[in-house]
C-alpha cells in the first residue's frame, strides 16, 4: 500500500476533470493589499514611532536604554535571569547582574531573559526571533519577563518586508505582545505558557 501515490492519484483525478481552473493572483496584486496600520513613510523616525505605538497597542513595553531596562526588571521583581552575552556587548556597561548561560535545570528560577531579536515590524509591533540570534529557545520563552534587544535600524515597515528578509533559518518566530488566552469566559489573561511581560529594548544605531 502506497498512500502517497494513492492520495496524489486521487487528487490528480479530482482536479483533472475540471474544465476551467482558476489563475493564481500575481504577487504584485497580493502585495498591493496593505493595511492602514503600516507607517506612512519608511524613514527611520516614522518606523520607530510606529513600532513604539503598535508595540504598546499589543501589550508590549518599549525600553530605551539600560537604565530603563534595569528599572523595568526591578518593577516586576525580576532579580534572577539570563542576559545573552551578545546583548550585553551591544548594551555596553550596566549594573545588571545576570547569568550569561541559560540552563534547563534552572527554568523555574529564571525570572527574566534578555535575548537578541532579529527584526522589528512597525506595522504590527512585532518582534522577530530566529534560531541564529537566539542561542537558547527556552531563554526567550520560559521566563515571566522577556526582553528582546533590537537596534533601531532593524525595524522594517511591514510584515511583507519582514518576510522578504527571511533566510534559511529553521525557526523564525513573530512575537506580537505577551502570551495570552481568552479561553475562560472570553476574559483576556496574559502569561499562559510564554512570557506574561514582553518588552523590547530598543538601542540606537
Amino acid at each position: 500500500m502506497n498512500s502517497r501515490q494513492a492520495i496524489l492519484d486521487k487528487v490528480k483525478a479530482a482536479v483533472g476533470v475540471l474544465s476551467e481552473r482558476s489563475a493564481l493572483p500575481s504577487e504584485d496584486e497580493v502585495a498591493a493589499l496593505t493595511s492602514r496600520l503600516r507607517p506612512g513613510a519608511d524613514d527611520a523616525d516614522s518606523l520607530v514611532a510606529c513600532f513604539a505605538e503598535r508595540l504598546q497597542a499589543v501589550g508590549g513595553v518599549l525600553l530605551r536604554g539600560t537604565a530603563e531596562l534595569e528599572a523595568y526588571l526591578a518593577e516586576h521583581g525580576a532579580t534572577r535571569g539570563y542576559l545573552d552575552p551578545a546583548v550585553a556587548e551591544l548594551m555596553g556597561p550596566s549594573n545588571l547582574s545576570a547569568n550569561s548561560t541559560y540552563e534547563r535545570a534552572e527554568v523555574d528560577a529564571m525570572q527574566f531573559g534578555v535575548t537578541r531579536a532579529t527584526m522589528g515590524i512597525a506595522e504590527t509591533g512585532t518582534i522577530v526571533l530566529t534560531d541564529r540570534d537566539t542561542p537558547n529557545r527556552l531563554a526567550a520563552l520560559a521566563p515571566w519577563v522577556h526582553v528582546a534587544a533590537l537596534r533601531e535600524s532593524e525595524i522594517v515597515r511591514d510584515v511583507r518586508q519582514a518576510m522578504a528578509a527571511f533566510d534559511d533559518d529553521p525557526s523564525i518566530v513573530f512575537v506580537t505582545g505577551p502570551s495570552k488566552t481568552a479561553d475562560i469566559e472570553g476574559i483576556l489573561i496574559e502569561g499562559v505558557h510564554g512570557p506574561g511581560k514582553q518588552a523590547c529594548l530598543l538601542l540606537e544605531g
Partner: protein
Amino acid sequence: MAKSIQEIDSFAEKLPDDTRASVHHASKLKTEKRFATLASDFEEPDTLRKTAARVKQHTLEHLDEYLLQAEASLQRNGATVHWASDSEEANATVLRIMQQRGAKKMVKSKSMVSEETELVAYLEKNDIEAVETDLGEFVVQIDGDHPSHIVTPIIHKNRKQVARSFEREGLGAYTESPEELTAMARRHLRAKYLAADVGLTGANFVTADTGRITLVTNEGNARFSMAATKTLIVMVGIEKLVPRQSDLPLFLSLLGRSATGQALTVYTQFIGGPKLSGLPEGPEEMHVIFLDNGRSEVLASDCREILRCIRCGACMNICPVYRQASGHAYRFVYPGPVGAVLSPLINPQGFPQLADLPKASSLCGACQEVCPVDIPIPDLLVRLRRRGKLEKAEKASINTPGFGVWASGATSPGMWRAGLKMGHAMNYLPRVLLDVNPAAHAWQEHRDLPPFDGGSFRSWLKEKDKEAGK
C-alpha cells in the same frame, strides 16, 4: 410521531441555559472584534477576502502539483514527509515515529486534524502519555469532553466548571479567578513540556515554495513544545497549502482578524526544519504527515470550495444557529457553518449520519460575508440538501418547517420594517402568543428565540453612512 425533530435540534434543546449564554456572549464578542479590526485596518476588506479566496481556489485546483512541490521543499529543509490516507494510518504513523525513538511522552498543540483522527485516545491505548497544552484543549481533555469551537474549545464552559475540574485533578484549590486558573495550568503544563520527548502540532499553512510550516498560537504552547522537545511531528490536512511564502502576509492578516480581532496572532511561527546544529534546545527531527481523510473526495465533489477554509471560526461566531445550539450539536470535530458542510462530507460514519446539518440554517448568508476566503457556504448547504434528498438520507427529511409567515414578511418591506421595530417588544411577549402559526409551531416547540438585541440593519447602515459623511 417517531423522532419528529432533527438531531441538531434535540441537542440544542437540551443545552443548559448558562451554556447557551456563555456561547452566545463569547461568539458575539468575537464577531464584534473581527468587524472592528478588519473594517478599520483595510480600505477594502472585501478585496482581501476575494483575493485570498482566489489564491486558495487556485491552489486546490492544482493541488497535485503543489503537494509535490511542498514535499520536495520540506525534504530540502530536512523534514521527513509521510502520507496518510485516513485517521488510522495517520495515528499509526505518529506511533511508529515515537516508537522508533523510544519516546513515551508527547505534548500536543491544538490541532483540528488530530481531533479528527482521535489521536490522543489512540496514543493512550498504546501506552503513550499525550497531553493537550492549549488551555482550552487541556480542560477538554481532563474532563473527557469535546471541543465545541475550533478556536476557543471551551466556549461552552464557565470559570466555575474549570475551577472544579482543576481542583479535582489536583492542580490547585478552587478559585474563580481566571488569572489563578491560568497560572495553575502554566505550572502544570510546564513540567509536561520539559519531560516530553515529542511535540505534535497542526499547521495553519504550508508554503509550497519554501517548505515552511506556518503555525499561529496566542498562548505560546506550540512554541514551547518546539523549544523543549527533541522531535517535532506536524499533522496537516492536504488542503493547507499556499503556493508562495509571499501569500502569507495576506492570509495572516485575515486569519488573526477573523479569528480574534488581532492584526497578528501573538506567536506566528515559520518552521523550516529541525533546529540549527549546535543549539541546545529544539527538535533534532521533524516529521510532516499529510492527511487525506476524505479531502480528496471533497475535492472531487461540487463542494470543493469548503477546502479553502483556514479554520478561523468567524462563521460559527456569527451564526445564529451555532449561537443557539453550541458546538456539540454538530456531533463532529467541525461545528457551525463550516462544519455543516465539511462534517457530513468527511465524518467516518458517512454522509447520512450528519445529513441534518446542512438543513440547520436559515441561509441568511452571514457566514459567507465574514468568511476570510469567501466560501459560498449557503450555496454549498443547498447542494448538500439536494444530495440528502437524492440519497434519501433519513436525517435530511425530518420535520421541515413551513416558512409561510417568514416568507410573506420577508417579501413585503412594510411588514419587514414593522416586524423589526417590534423586535424588542418580542422579548416581553409570552412565548405562547408567538406560536400562532401551526406550521411554525412544530418548529418552535424545539427552539428558543434569542433575545432581540440591537436595532435594524437599516438604521445601523444609515448611522454608518452619516459617520462616513456619505
